[in-house]
């Protein structure tokens, strides 16, 4: 199959998934108990005031019509306005998305370096004492609940040792990159949350390659250690490994919501949890859809990279 057809196929599937996602996001938020009217009008409002407010926000129209309006707007890049603050969802997204993606990018880089190193070491020595030690440690890491890790980090590094701030507050107008210390705890929590699974996936993609006939042949001709790993094992395990890291990244995008909320890091996830608290349906829908789209793009990139790294798709010369 040619590259063009492959990419076109994946894009079509991605678009279809996005439509399904928009449906589930819309109907899930629609089904949430309580609504923005209750939050905005307060407890003292009369029934008539509530109806007026609902009409002014356009919430009295049928849900199907509001869905179509929302989706057609989203397709043009307009995600609507916050029901609470009146700010454009697109603006909030643009302001916060780089913070969140930056956070995830740093975390996945750290995870990739550690997981590839440890996964390769342990996968190439499958069944040895080192491998069992790594597998046990990794299993423990996976078993740790994320929120427990974050709470522990907060207690030890922020409250007791006072090395880093416990809350990632950034002065208005500044970006988190100007205050690297606020990044430490969120990044470490994400890394600890994702590292275990990533290492296991890497180890699993290394093992069949390391047991393959060409690695045996290379070993018997003197290749060993780093040379064996870099020239023989990793090039052939790279495809599945990249897929594993892509899935991991997608998972971190979701995980960042929890971490950002916990450390009040100024990212999309933090905005999202605040929007949920204030029943700001438009904001929730817009941010959730955007996070879903980012996840799909990451997975698509993983598919493309894995295909590019599969040696059997390579052509030496256009003969």
């Amino acid at each position, binding site marked *: 199959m040619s590259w063009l057809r492959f990419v076109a196929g994946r894009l079509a599937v991605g678009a279809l998934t996005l439509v399904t996602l928009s449906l589930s996001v819309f109907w899930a938020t629609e089904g949430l108990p309580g609504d923005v009217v209750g939050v905005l009008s307060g407890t003292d409002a009369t029934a008539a005031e509530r109806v007026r407010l609902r009409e002014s926000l356009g919430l009295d129209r049928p849900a199907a019509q509001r869905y179509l309006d929302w989706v057609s707007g989203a397709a043009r890049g307009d995600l609507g306005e916050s029901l609470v603050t009146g700010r454009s969802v697109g603006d909030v997204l643009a302001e916060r998305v780089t913070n969140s993606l930056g956070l995830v990018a740093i975390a996945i880089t750290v995870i990739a370096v550690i997981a590839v190193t440890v996964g390769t070491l342990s996968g190439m020595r499958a069944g040895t004492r080192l491998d069992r030690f790594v597998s046990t440690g990794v299993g423990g890491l996976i078993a740790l609940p994320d929120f427990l890790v974050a709470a522990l980090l907060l207690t030890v590094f922020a409250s007791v040792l006072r090395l880093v701030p416990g809350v990632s507050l950034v002065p208005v107008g500044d970006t988190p990159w100007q205050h690297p210390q606020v990044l430490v705890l969120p990044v470490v929590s994400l890394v600890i949350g994702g590292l275990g699974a990533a290492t296991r996936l890497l180890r699993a993609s290394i093992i069949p390659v390391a047991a393959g006939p060409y690695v045996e042949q290379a070993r018997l*001709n003197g290749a060993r250690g780093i040379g064996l790993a870099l020239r023989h094992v990793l*090039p052939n395990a790279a495809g599945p490994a990249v897929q594993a890291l892509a899935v991991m990244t997608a998972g971190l995008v979701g995980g960042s919501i929890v971490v950002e909320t916990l450390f009040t890091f100024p990212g999309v996830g933090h905005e999202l949890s605040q929007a949920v608290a204030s029943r700001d349906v438009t904001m929730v829908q817009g941010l959730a859809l955007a996070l879903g789209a980012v996840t799909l793009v990451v997975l698509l990139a993983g598919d493309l990279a894995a295909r590019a790294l599969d*040696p059997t798709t390579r052509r030496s010369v256009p003969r």
Partner: protein
Amino acid sequence: MNVVEVNGLGLHGANRAVVTDVSLALAPGRILGLAGPSGAGKTSLAHAVIGYLRPGLTVATGSVRVCGFDPFTASGSRAVRGSRVGYLGQDPASGLNPARRIGSQLAEALRRRPGLSDPRATVAEAAESVRLPADLLRRYPHELSGGQAQRAALAAALVGRPELLILDEPTSGLDVTLRRQVTELLCGLGAGTSVLLVSHDTEVLRHVAHDVLRMAAGRLVASAGPVAVPAPVTVPAPAVVPAPAAVSAPATVPAPAVVPAPMTVSVPAAACGSSPASRSDTLLRAAGIVAGYGRATVLDGVDLHVDPGQCVAVVGDSGSGKSTLGRCLAGLQAPWRGQIAVRGRAVPWPAGRRGADRVAVCYVPQDSRSALNPREPVAVALTRAGRAASRAGRQAADLATLLDLVGLPGLKDRYPGQLSGGERERVNLARALATCGDVLICDEVTASLDEQSERSVLDTLDRLRHELGLGIVLITHSPVVAARADATHHLAEGRLT
């Protein structure tokens, strides 16, 4: 000092001895042949010489010294592997790294040879010595044919000019011309290189080896002593097609003490489900097959038909497209153009769309190592193929019958990693037989078998086609194998003649 000294070596597997009390010595510049039926422990012994044991094997007794080092120690193996000793394993095509170009793999083999002024020229020279065209150096392994890959792997073993070369079946997939060139090459290595040559090919051993040792059931059974003066090379010209009878073991090599179980199993008529009533139809008719890779046309209008009970041989140079034709016929690869009909019914590509006809044409691939699932015991692989036959409405043969047919009784619980190269090939064949197809496409299925096993496998195929009306396409480089066929077609420049 001897390059290799093995003293009383015994290797044990989980519940059986693989090698028992083997002692041998190899002097500098000498070529030692290691012959014997498949499963005799030849490859395990060759592995032991570089201090390698397949998983599950242990050294029970004895010792090995290579260039004065003990290869089973970490420092010893570092001292010999890749620098003093070059190793080429069985099924060399699967030993090439799929992610790297042939040229870069040859260059890597060279890095262990110090003080070389022009590595590029040396690589080109090594490729030339195995008659590998220079433009193939830029290709990836999956872009080479089986024979080309084998020569590339051989070049990689030769390029470092090691003191000791261990070659495991280096000529098994090569045609007569190429085999003779490799033979000349080995004879011309000179005094600097000793060779341990594992081969089932008595012709090659006779002309290359100074001494031939024969193994059976893990023991050395006899030493043939100096066989012949290696130079000048007197391998028969390719035009001479020896009759099968003429290729029995030459008198200089004594017959093995342990003869593999002769295949006296009669094929029960119900073993396979093809009905004798339809014997008059043409089983397989392929017309105008055009296929290729990228922009290169490999097959350019191939017609082929196989009648019930007929055996058709397809011969041709390495890289001429024999395997491509086999894969197209079996439906594993969709050709660009062409039709194929089984028993008069047109079937589509790929094989997955053939419904109940998907097992009608079976393919027995060339690279037996990558064709078997390493985590699946023989019995499971065969049973699974039998279930595919049942789903297609054919009556599957039972496990014991199948293993007896290919002369491998009692191997049902082994994993592919515990089989020798020759045993793997026969398991592959048994798996294809288990699907009870109408046509069997055998791609070099006897390439790494010793003469005796080869003869019995060919006898089995003959009996199957005569008794059950099975059609057989034999893709082969060997005139001995092709001589068994009713018709021989030559594939050259994309056309079958």
